[in-house]
């Protein structure tokens, strides 16, 4: 069976700028897919091409087996929720949501029934008579969602759906969005620049940079097994160590750089290869005394920040190598390390990601 959405070698230029560069991507029915990238990476352009507001210079986009090149936005089985919601300011909530239903020429009783259903879905029952400017930011976001879902699109595009909400509301709304998506089983494509948002929402994430997809994977794979330095750095915090492979031994690689490290062999490395090791802050443990295991490095605390859940440390090792790490605040930590104090960090060979760039 062919995939629900098939994007093949799509390119879009604006003058000299290549917004989307020979991009191919398949998305399955019912997925909640996230396009993640910094501003200007081409993610919004790709979304607008799916909605039909931009054409592709070359390549093809198929939705549900039909080529979309000649299909105008109004005729696509696709609806979009805009970043600023784009609510019609002169219409009530009900008229906003029913706009697409009336355009579709549905009979009045059915419009009324669907309107009620949608208002219930986004928890705005009884608010139908209000104008957009009488609503809070979160309520407006839900009106926009209901309006975009009204025509029962096969594919819903969401452009930075949560960017205009404050942090607390954003966290609640994330779960609500996932919940609605699961209930409707509509395919969602969410564009965002917020990696945490992408991780929370998506079943798969496509990370974009300079118009290309750098890696497409589940959130966990992206985080734990980034393909290159860009992905490792873009998703969360990471420390890098450079070195050269000195030996391959029974599934382990030994690497010599400013410090000697043993890592699990991902395959494909040979003695003498230059590698870059990436390690996440929460996978490093910090202690006052050496534990005697592998990958143990003497360090000095350079800086620390208490965040409540955890304490973030920046430590300096031999030859000025810097590592960022996070220690959860447990009750047993009677005397955590303070500024300028010496200690030891250690990490598991399995938690090191070996990168070639």
């Amino acid at each position, binding site marked *: 069976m062919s995939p629900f959405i098939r994007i093949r070698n799509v390119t879009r230029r604006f003058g000299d700028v290549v917004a989307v560069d020979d991009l191919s991507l398949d998305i399955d029915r019912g997925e909640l897919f996230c396009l993640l990238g910094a501003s200007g990476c081409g993610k919004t352009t790709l979304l607008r091409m799916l909605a*039909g*507001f931009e054409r592709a210079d070359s390549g093809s986009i198929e939705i549900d087996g039909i080529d979309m090149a000649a299909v105008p936005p*109004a005729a696509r089985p696709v609806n979009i929720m805009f970043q600023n919601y*784009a609510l019609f300011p002169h219409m009530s909530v009900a008229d906003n949501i029913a706009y697409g239903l009336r355009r579709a020429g549905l009979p009045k009783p059915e419009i009324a029934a669907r309107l009620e259903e949608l208002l219930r879905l986004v928890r705005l029952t009884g608010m139908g008579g209000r104008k957009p400017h009488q609503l*809070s930011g979160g309520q407006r976001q839900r009106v926009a969602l209901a309006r975009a879902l009204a*025509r029962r699109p096969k594919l819903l595009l969401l452009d930075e759906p949560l960017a205009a909400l404050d942090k607390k509301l954003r966290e609640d709304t994330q779960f609500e969005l996932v919940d609605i998506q699961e209930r409707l089983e509509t395919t969602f494509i969410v564009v965002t620049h917020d990696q945490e948002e992408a991780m929370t929402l998506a079943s798969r994430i496509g990370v974009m940079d300079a118009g290309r997809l750098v890696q497409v994977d589940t959130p966990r794979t992206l985080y734990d097994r980034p393909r290159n330095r860009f992905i490792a750095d873009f998703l969360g915090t990471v420390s890098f160590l450079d070195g050269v492979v000195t030996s391959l031994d029974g599934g382990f690689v030994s690497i010599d750089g400013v410090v000697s490290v043993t890592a699990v062999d991902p395959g494909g490395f040979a003695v003498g290869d230059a590698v870059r090791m990436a390690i996440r802050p929460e996978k490093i443990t910090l202690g006052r005394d050496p534990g005697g295991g592998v990958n143990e490095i003497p360090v000095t605390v350079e800086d620390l920040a208490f965040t409540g859940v955890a304490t973030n440390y920046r430590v300096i090792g031999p030859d000025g190598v810097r590592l960022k790490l996070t220690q959860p605040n447990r009750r047993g930590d009677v005397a955590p390390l303070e500024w300028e104090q010496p200690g030891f960090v250690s990490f598991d060979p399995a938690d090191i990601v070996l990168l070639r760039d």
Partner: protein
Amino acid sequence: MRRGISWPALWLAIIGFGILYVPVVVMVVYSFNASRLVSVWAGFSTRWYGELMQNDQVLSALAKSLWVAVNAATLSTIFGVLIALAFVRYGNFRFRLLLSALASTPLVMPEVVTGLSLLLLFIAMEGFFGWPAGRGIDTIIIAHTTFGMCFAAVVVQSRLRDFDMSIEEAASDLGATQPYIFFSITLPIIAPAVVAAWLLAFTLSFDDLVIASFVSGPGSSTLPIVVFSKVRLGVTPEINALATIMIALVAASVIAASVIIYRNATGRAVAEEKGSQP
């Protein structure tokens, strides 16, 4: 923080506004003068307003002026909206700068030039294909529309410029066709600017003397033309009364336009203020 009154600034303001409005006030006051002599005050009276209402020439000129102004304002607004849409929506088409300069030149063109050139055009057109047959109300409406639409375009353009395009895209995404989007979404949102443009064009047309004098014909004298020809025979209290009525009419439409623009601006500001709260 309150600042003390700066006396020189206050005096400048008094002199400035005095120069602007003392003549108008004097005229309004003398329109209520019981005496026929303009410069001698002989007590309060509304006699001249009464006589004005009996004056068929003035009343028919007023009716013509209103008819011309309503038509010219309506046509100006329609064309002005189209001009504004073209310049704001169709991006950087060829000769855009040249055309937008051409569209706003009538704003600063001397009225004598506009009037004369239109007169010559009408005469030439009549010679070539027999229309317009002579000059009259129609030619005044056309003439007023030619400059009124430029003003209307400026007013509407400023509103269209900060129009959020994604609102129209949302409508098209929801299945609406372009004409339907214009009437259901765009027009209601820019309506305050359209009304303001209409009122502005109405005012400009209603008090125009110069252009109307060029392109009017026998039997199509508008109110300003009648007033001007009467004044040449000497200022009468009747004219003062007429001018007062005209001021009231123009002031009312200018105030209405300002209120609409102001209320819309503050309404939006309030809405945005509210929107920023979670």
